């Protein structure tokens, strides 16, 4: 497989301009003759669908939720970065670019990341024009806050509901286009395969989740904005429905999967309360602006009430280890530091898996009202879940799986290795390297959705001869038949174990061996356990009911079946990457003081895995990463 990144030549700051000029255009009158399928209605899908329709394309947008407004982008809390430099604190496009490259531990493409930083400023303008109610100062101008991995205030926010407000902006734009007839919305519809004709993505096969009908939709191009795959771990901050099926099916049809092992463990989540736990809840990173993270210095103090532990007996370990970034160290670093102190036996709360996030000092400094204004809804959420009042008792937090930097490989046009199949947002791999900085997911989703893919789709359609595809084309029929077979196969197992029990077991295995710290030994073990568990799943899973009705067990089973396969690829990728970088921490590769130790000589590349057929090992393709504008260095936040 040939990986052509298609990064334009020339100076970094001119690449996107140059590319935009060189791209083919589609005549406005011809656009309506072209149909584009968008799968997913979050920031990366919904924004693309709305914008493509505004441009004149005929758009079909699919989501598994009952409304496009419920895509998981909605749960992002803290904010969105943009290099506006409204605070006059030294920010610039280049600084946002640099922070993102460095935050990603030098495993992302310079060209893509620079374009992201350039586009960030337009996103804020666009969202304000749509009526997104960002926080403001008394003078009426926009407010900013700081986020991890940056020393400037460049994060725009709407209380603790930034993702919700940005998504509602995109959703409203989408509904505007629905009312004009440019977008047809297919809610409660799940994509189960991509249709490839003559080597090009020409449609998708979906299941209507209400009637169970399997149907094919054909188009000139397909965009997957279907999010990440954190739910492979069962417990994560992802929504329960978030899944990898769309990108996994595309992988099995020939799209390369890049850096699958790059997963982000978010440091500030509410710790696991018990066996019944169905998901984990994130507490926004923005809390670390005012909250101080600590554990007792001595193990013996862990069972004491936190307020009874005097200042001198507390270890503010982030401030101690990383004095210049302190509590705002990047996520991967803060997560590992939490694991470390808990492994030492200094964790707090049930099972000793927790650290304190304390607002005592901040409340003394600025008052309860100010803290309530900044984080009120987060404090409420915490109290509702834990029954503890964080205004009085420090929060307990622990890292949890939150985001996946890996995803389908895409070129500069956001096109996968299948021509015509474009991938946006968390579903692709392109911008965050081995670790994503806080408030950058919303930025990337909207950059891809509003400003990048609507143009590159035009270039693809404008430069490609697309013959009409008939619904009875043998490749279309074969794909649809394969989907039916798979659904029937799942229903025919009629075993004894529930889907959830398999998912939970897979998740436990992944968290243990492919979570915050990974070792060759552990990964090999996982690679033995997972295939066995998968075989058991296909022999013994129990799915009640039929395929011709709303059947939530069937939906879940299809997703878990794909998670099994993806989990194996993640472990394989983690095992092959004999270095530590960003969220990928291999215990064999660390500095004497326990920091991630990269191996730039051997691993400065994107690992793009290619499906080679059932039962065969996937093929590793490498896209070398070239750094012309930044010098590779060991990340230091000290």
């Amino acid at each position, binding site marked *: 497989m040939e990986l052509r990144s298609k990064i334009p030549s020339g100076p970094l700051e001119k690449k996107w301009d140059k590319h935009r000029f060189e791209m083919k255009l589609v005549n406005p009158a011809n656009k309506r003759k072209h149909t584009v399928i968008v799968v997913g209605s979050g920031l990366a899908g919904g924004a693309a669908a709305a914008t493509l329709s505004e441009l004149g394309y005929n758009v079909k947008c699919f989501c598994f939720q009952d409304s496009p407004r419920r895509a998981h982008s909605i749960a992002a809390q803290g904010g969105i970065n943009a290099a506006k430099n409204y605070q006059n604190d030294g920010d610039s496009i280049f600084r946002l670019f640099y922070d993102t490259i460095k935050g990603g531990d030098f495993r992302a493409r310079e060209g893509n990341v620079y374009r992201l930083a350039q586009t960030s400023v337009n996103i804020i303008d666009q969202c304000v024009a749509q009526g997104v*109610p960002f926080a403001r100062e008394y003078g009426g101008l926009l407010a900013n806050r700081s986020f991890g991995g940056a020393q400037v205030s460049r994060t725009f926010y709407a209380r603790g509901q930034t993702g919700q407000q940005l998504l509602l902006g995109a959703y409203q734009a989408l509904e505007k286009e629905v009312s004009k007839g440019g977008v047809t919305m297919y809610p409660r519809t799940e994509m189960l395969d991509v249709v490839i004709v003559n080597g090009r993505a020409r449609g998708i096969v979906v299941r209507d989740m209400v009637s169970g009908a399997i149907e094919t939709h054909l188009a000139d191009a397909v965009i997957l904005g279907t999010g990440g795959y954190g739910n492979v771990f069962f417990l994560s901050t992802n929504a*329960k429905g978030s899944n990898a099926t769309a990108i996994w099916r595309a992988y099995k049809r020939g799209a390369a999967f890049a850096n699958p092992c790059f997963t982000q463990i978010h440091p500030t989540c509410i710790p696991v309360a018990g066996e019944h736990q169905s998901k984990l809840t994130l507490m926004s990173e923005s809390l670390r602006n005012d909250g101080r993270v600590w554990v007792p210095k001595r193990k013996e103090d862990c069972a004491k009430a936190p307020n009874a532990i005097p200042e001198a007996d507390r270890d503010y370990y982030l401030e101690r280890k990383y004095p210049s970034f302190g509590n705002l160290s990047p996520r991967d670093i803060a997560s590992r530091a939490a694991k470390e102190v808990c492994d030492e036996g200094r964790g707090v709360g049930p099972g000793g898996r927790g650290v304190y996030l304390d607002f005592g000092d901040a409340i003394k400094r600025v008052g309860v009202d100010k803290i309530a204004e900044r984080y009120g809804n987060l404090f409420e959420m915490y109290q*509702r879940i834990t029954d503890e009042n964080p205004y009085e008792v420090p929060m307990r937090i622990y890292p949890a799986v939150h985001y996946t930097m890996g995803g389908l490989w895409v070129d500069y046009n956001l096109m996968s290795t299948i021509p015509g199949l474009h991938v946006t947002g968390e579903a692709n791999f392109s911008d965050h390297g081995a670790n994503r900085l806080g408030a950058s997911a919303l930025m990337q989703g909207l950059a891809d959705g509003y400003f990048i893919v609507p143009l590159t789709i035009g270039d693809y359609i404008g430069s490609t001869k697309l013959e009409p595809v008939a619904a009875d084309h043998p490749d279309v029929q074969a794909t649809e038949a394969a989907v039916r077979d798979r659904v029937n196969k799942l229903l025919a197992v009629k075993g004894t174990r529930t889907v959830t029990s398999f998912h939970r077991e897979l998740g436990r295995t992944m968290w243990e061996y492919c979570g915050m710290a990974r070792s060759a030994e552990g990964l090999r073990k996982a690679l033995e356990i997972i295939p066995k568990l998968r075989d058991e799943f296909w022999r013994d899973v129990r799915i009640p009911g039929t395929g011709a009705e709303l059947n939530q067990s069937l939906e879940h089973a299809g997703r878990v079946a794909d998670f099994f396969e993806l989990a194996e690829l993640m472990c394989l990728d983690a095992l092959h990457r004999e270095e530590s970088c960003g969220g990928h921490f291999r215990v064999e590769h660390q500095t004497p003081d326990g920091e991630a130790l990269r191996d730039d000589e051997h691993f400065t590349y994107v690992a793009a895995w290619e499906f080679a057929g059932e039962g065969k090992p996937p093929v590793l393709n490498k896209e070398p990463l070239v750094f012309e504008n930044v010098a590779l260095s060991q990340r230091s936040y000290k």
Partner: protein
Amino acid sequence: MNLTLHVWRQTGPDTNGTMERYEARDVSPDMSFLEMLDVVNEGLVEAGQMPIAFDHDCREGICGSCGMMINGVAHGPSKGTATCQLHMRTFEDGASVYIEPWRSRAFPVIKDLVVNRGALDRIIAAGGFISAQTGGAQDANNIPVAKQDSDDAMDAAACIGCGACVAACPNGSASLFTAAKISHLGALPQGQPERNRRAQRMVLQMDSEGFGHCTLYGECQEACPKEISIDTIARMNRDFVGSTVAAREEKALGGTG
């Protein structure tokens, strides 16, 4: 703790439903309400029965997917709390809990506790937006917005579109939902050009979907997991009446040119 559940079961939109009784054993007070239902469902699957279908996704009170009548109250007993954020510590050991889908003519039942809320999307499509095509925006700080206006907009924009307001309303009105969007966009300078048209179209769409009228019971405000105020309804009514007058004036002024 142990609970007795009485759950509405309905196999499809065209079938009749019934209340079925289930025992929920060994429930932890730290479980969320949906986690309790997960456990019951695991038991049902193991016993070879269909699990109770219910909508849910983020389970952190923001996506608006979940929602059910719990002992006759939309989203259950905790104020300002969506079903997924309701915890079992709220219930007494040994209690009976009645669980039903949203009740509204405009929200037909699909299965068990799952209803079709597509009408809410159609209300937004009728006018719940600011027409700002991608790419044409001026610098964000060129539109100063008074902090109070911005805060008012945000208060209304917090709506998660769950439909509890409709389910709680004795008239089955979607006024709080519609008013929240009209208030969010109407409070901002960017929302002014389409303010009249938005109010007209959204209110008429709401009526055409079969929702009832608002007679200010105020039940919606009590049920709203985001505690959106019925002040927004006053704003909607003002904008609707104002826009009706404005539309007449427009007609009177208009000619064939």
